[in-house]
Every structure is written in structure tokens, then in C-alpha cells.
């Protein structure tokens, strides 16, 4: 009996069209509906606030009113599947991409993807980045056989739009101004220490990092990177791996070691 009541209660909470569960009573008969609506409102407001907390730049770009509607429609379609509110909204970027009224802001879904990745990086497992000194100990002949373990927080959000610049402008990192150099940017999201770091990757880096995180050797990753972008610069990317604290361990596996 309680299970049925709880189910009715939960379903009625998120659906204003449904009647108040019949077992809900108040001292005055007509108070039940009014009081239940307070409950309903709090659930909606809390979830909208959770989305606004995770997607502040998305909210800033469309404005509060638009965001409230967008969030409310999302909540109805994607109620929380977990009590961990910091991860609520994993599907929000995809929902925005399919949202007709937001189509004019073509870069908005990618901004939301970047904000979602930011929260995941924040809550990713801690790991100590490897010091660049280990790179000095590697001989050039072994470099191609090196495999890197990347930090658990590392994520790449590739975009056809200048999402890193747009995000930085809205977060106050750089002054708000017209973006005259409108081009695609791949964002690197990581949290080597306590703060989430978002930066724009150089050409070919996204393919390079994807290959490394997939367990490929450096030589294989370079081939992927050059195929993706002929301007790929290995020197800059090796420096980036250590400057940005992306590597947590490395190993050298020569082809001879791998054969039986």
C-alpha cells in the first residue's frame, strides 16, 4: 500500500496535470491541492536550480527566462535517475541540440557539453601528475614506444565553434568582445590539481590525446594526429602533456617485448 502511495506521490509531483494522490489529506479539504502544489513547485525549482548551477554559461547566453523554460521541459523529459545532483543534466546538451527554439544559437549544445565535462572533471578521481623530469630520462629512440596513462579527469570536447573563447568571455576570463576570428576550437578539460582547467588545444592534439588515452603508443598517436591535421607539432604537444599535468604514468613497451 505504501509502495503504491509513494509511486502516486512521486508521479504526481512531476506532472502538474495529475490529480493530487487521494490519500493526501489536509485539515481543510481544499488545502491538500494547494499544499501539494507547493511541494510540486519546490521539486521543479530545485531541479532547475541544479541545472543552472551546472550550466551557468548556457544560462547566461540564453537568459534566465529562456533557461527556465528549457530546464523545465528537460526535467519533464529527463527526470533525475540518481540522487547525485551534481551529475544531473548529462542529457541536457543533447536536449538543447534537439530544441527547436535554441537552434539559432548553433554553438549552444557544445557550450553545454563543455560545462557538463567541467563538472565531471571536478568530481573525477584525484591523481598526481607526473613531473616533466621523467621526459628527460627517455631516450629519443624509445620515444615512439612510450605509452602514457592520462589523468582520470581528462576530457576533450571538439567543436566547430570557438567554444573555449565563448566560455572564457562569459566566465570573465577574457573581456566580452566581438569574436572576429570565428573558427573551430577543441577544448581540453582537466583537473590535475584542485581547479578545473579548460584550454584550447592546438591542431591535431585532440586526435593525439584520444589515441594516447586509448592505449596507443606515442608513435601510433602521432600517426593519428598527423592524419587528422598535417600541422600537428609533436614538440608542443609533448610539452603540453606535462605542462598541463595530463600524464600520471608512462611505460616503454618495445615491439620485441610485446611478441611472445
Amino acid at each position, binding site marked *: 500500500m505504501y509502495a503504491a502511495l509513494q509511486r502516486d506521490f512521486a508521479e504526481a509531483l512531476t506532472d502538474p496535470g495529475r490529480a493530487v494522490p487521494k490519500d493526501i489529506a489536509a485539515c481543510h479539504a481544499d488545502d491538500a491541492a494547494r499544499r501539494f502544489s507547493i511541494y510540486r513547485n519546490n521539486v*521543479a525549482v530545485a531541479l532547475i536550480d541544479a541545472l543552472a548551477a551546472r550550466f551557468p554559461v548556457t544560462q547566461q547566453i540564453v537568459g534566465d527566462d529562456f533557461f527556465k523554460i528549457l530546464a523545465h521541459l528537460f526535467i519533464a523529459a529527463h527526470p533525475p535517475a540518481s540522487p547525485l545532483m551534481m551529475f544531473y543534466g548529462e542529457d541536457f546538451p543533447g536536449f538543447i541540440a534537439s530544441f527547436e527554439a535554441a537552434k539559432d544559437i548553433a554553438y549552444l549544445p557544445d557550450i553545454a557539453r563543455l560545462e557538463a565535462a567541467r563538472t565531471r572533471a571536478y568530481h573525477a578521481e584525484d591523481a598526481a601528475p607526473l613531473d616533466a623530469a621523467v621526459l628527460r630520462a627517455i631516450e629519443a629512440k624509445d620515444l615512439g614506444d612510450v605509452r602514457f596513462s592520462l589523468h582520470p579527469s581528462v576530457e576533450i570536447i571538439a567543436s566547430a565553434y570557438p567554444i573555449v573563447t565563448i566560455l572564457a568571455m562569459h566566465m570573465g576570463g577574457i573581456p566580452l568582445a566581438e569574436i572576429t576570428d570565428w573558427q573551430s576550437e577543441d577544448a581540453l578539460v582537466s583537473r590535475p590539481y584542485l581547479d578545473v582547467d579548460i584550454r584550447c588545444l592546438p591542431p591535431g592534439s585532440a586526435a593525439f590525446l584520444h589515441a594516447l588515452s586509448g592505449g596507443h603508443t606515442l608513435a601510433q598517436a602521432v600517426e593519428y594526429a598527423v592524419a587528422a591535421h598535417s600541422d600537428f607539432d609533436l614538440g*608542443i604537444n609533448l610539452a603540453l602533456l606535462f*605542462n598541463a599535468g595530463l600524464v600520471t604514468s608512462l611505460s616503454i613497451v618495445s615491439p620485441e617485448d610485446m611478441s611472445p
Partner: protein
Amino acid sequence: MMTVKTNVAGISLAGSLATALALLSGPASAGPAPAQPTMDKCYGVSLKAQNDCAAGAGTSCAGTSKADYDPAAWKYVAKGTCETISTPKGMGSLKAKS
């Protein structure tokens, strides 16, 4: 015995390693500034967007669930700061299609 790889896709491994080490040791690094390690994990000070629960949010008792956030009352258009951003199709315009 395998031949030692010195080049991959036309890129010299030794040259790249030297470049990387120079970038990493130079005072005026051409790469991004190294992150400053911070050691203390402090609780209770996380930013709004980064805390672990939404407790406290939505605790007001406005009691207007049917009036507020009614999808049927759609009348808003997107607005905001991105109107300063130009795109290949001209300046950003956030007027939603009617």
C-alpha cells in the same frame, strides 16, 4: 632486431623531444603556464556550481507550480550576451523563430 624508429609520419622524434624539453625548461615557456599545485582539500567552500548537493535550493514556498514554468505559456525568446559574437552568417542574433 627491429630498426629504431627515428621518424613518424615525417616528424623527427629526437627533434620533438628536444623541443618539448626546451619548452618545459624555458622560463618563458611557449606552452601554457604550469598549473600551481594546491594541497589542501577544503570542505564547505565549494562554488555553487561545484558542490555535491542541491540542498537549500528551491526551499522557498512559492506554491505556484501551475503558474510558473508552464510550458504552454511559451513566449520567451533567447537573449543574452552572445549578441556581441559574430558568426560566419553575420552577427549573432538570438531571436527565436516564431
